[in-house]
């Protein structure tokens, strides 16, 4: 059974294959219903920015995509493969069976993630941070992994920092290393969880620049952000998340400048 048979929410863009298909996602923490039947499609090569108030569920949604969070109902598929589950049936009724940890790890290895607080490994040098997973998870020969890492560091403008420890770098440099670390696994999809929220204002620009560069290479990206300028310049679409649902989604100029949903109007008017 392919996920495409599950009724689509009709949010996919007309052009391009779907890279991410999120269907009727529900999640609760105790009494708190964080995700309330949320659906979203992201096309291959598309950049989607998730915006919304804190506590709206946008970070939880992002963390579900690589199964850092579990959910209670619904499904997520990346590049056609269900995340965290496989289709099966019990007594003639289709069910989704949870995957083993080993299979989930394989799926995660193909999805890059960048965190708000970078989460670089402080006891490893920049180079060691970049080659750890390619060598030990993907099984890439060390020499090859080092060559790729050097290319990626050059791409984010930090070629000379390979031997530094993360704490010797500025926040902006650390976040660019984190982006390079995620890219070292050659992911098909990149997730960004408020990548500039922990940075001093003057350091935000260099990180956004690296992300913009990445978007121009055709990488599919889902970005939780409060950077409206970035969303306007780089995003194909902007999705406004509120109360665990996507209440408004569309091109940035439409969602950011002429929002129709009252909550989106209220949120955006407070930003300006």
């Amino acid at each position: 059974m392919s996920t495409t048979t599950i009724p689509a929410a009709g949010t996919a863009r007309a052009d391009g294959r779907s890279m991410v298909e999120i269907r009727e996602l529900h999640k609760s923490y105790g009494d708190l219903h964080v995700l309330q039947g949320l659906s979203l499609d992201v096309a291959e090569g598309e950049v989607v920015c998730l915006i919304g108030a804190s506590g709206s569920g946008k970070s939880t949604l992002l963390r579900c995509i690589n199964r850092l969070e579990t959910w209670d109902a619904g499904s997520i598929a990346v590049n056609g493969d269900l995340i965290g589950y496989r289709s099966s049936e019990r007594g003639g009724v289709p069910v989704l069976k949870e995957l083993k940890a080993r299979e989930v790890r394989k799926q995660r290895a193909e999805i890059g993630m960048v965190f708000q607080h970078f989460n670089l490994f402080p006891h490893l040098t920049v180079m060691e941070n970049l080659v750890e997973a390619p060598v030990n998870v993907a099984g890439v020969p060390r020499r090859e992994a080092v060559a790729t890492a050097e290319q990626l560091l050059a791409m984010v403008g930090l070629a000379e920092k390979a031997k530094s420890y993360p704490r010797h770098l500025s926040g902006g440099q650390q976040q660019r290393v984190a982006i390079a670390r995620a890219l070292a696994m050659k992911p098909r999809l990149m997730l960004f969880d408020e990548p500039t929220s922990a940075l001093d204002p003057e350091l935000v620009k260099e990180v956004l620049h690296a992300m913009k560069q990445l978007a121009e290479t055709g990488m599919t990206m889902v970005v939780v952000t409060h950077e409206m300028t970035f969303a306007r310049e780089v995003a194909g679409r902007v999705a406004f998340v509120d109360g665990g649902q996507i209440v408004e989604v569309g091109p940035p100029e439409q969602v950011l400048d002429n929002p129709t949903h009252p909550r989106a109007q209220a949120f955006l008017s407070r930003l300006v």
Partner: protein
Amino acid sequence: MSVSTTEANPPPLEALRHPGRWVAGAAAILLAFVVLESILGNSRLQWDVVGEYLFDEGIMKGLRLTIILTFAVTAVGMLLGTLIATARMSKNPVLAWLAWFYVWVFRSVPLLVQLLLWFNIAYLYPKIEIGLPFLPPLIEGDANKLISATTAAFLGLTLHEAAYAAEIVRGGILSVDPGQTEAGDALGMSRARILRRIVLPQAMRSIVPAAGNLLIGTLKGTAIVSVIAVDELLYAAQFIYNRTFEVVPLLVVATLWYMFMTAVLSVLQYFVERYYGRGATRSTTASPWAQAKAVFLRARGVFTTPTGGKA
């Protein structure tokens, strides 16, 4: 009076003097000298006897067993402790509960009581068989023969140490930012690899000082096993003074060796801490020599950078 900004060089800065510190320092040195003089100068300590027995064959044999016991107990205890700590934090409630129970039991029973129990294990289990259920035993024999005094000491000390090591390792693991595990997860790393490669090396920063304490505690804890007639350092000293009645000089011999070994372990701990501290601070830490020099120079009003170079 205002300082003119047109002047090329502002006047030099003069640091505040601390005469009180010099007085307190001098008083402390004097006090230390008086105490040392009264001990070292006490002829009843019989330093010649101390010298005579310091490298005595029996003492050397005892010292060797003390060192072997300390390292065997620490190695096995830390390993067992790490396993118990991971069990305690596992998602399996049965494992977590059992680990908690283990720590509770072995922290509640006094070491001395535990040693006596192991020494008298034959009372509970006259015959010991080790093996899988329903299969012939791998090891079997008389408990009194299988569990010698040294084995009883090793078992008691190790099980005791493991309970404390488990808490130290658990504390160390909890001190590492959960974001580190998340980053490893997001890269597709296995839980075991995340623990070994990412979390434990960072946890070591808080584990090492506590484990160093535990190691030195174990070193001196081995003295307790003299009560079950294990021929370690203290027992060796007792063995001699029971014959010669030179009680205090032989206790001094044992003490000097304990102090020497603690000094060696402290130096070792310093270097291990330095190793696990790499990448943890913005500047590398200065060596103790450079730090002492900086303190001395600062007292004389010369300022140095934290790494030891002159500012």
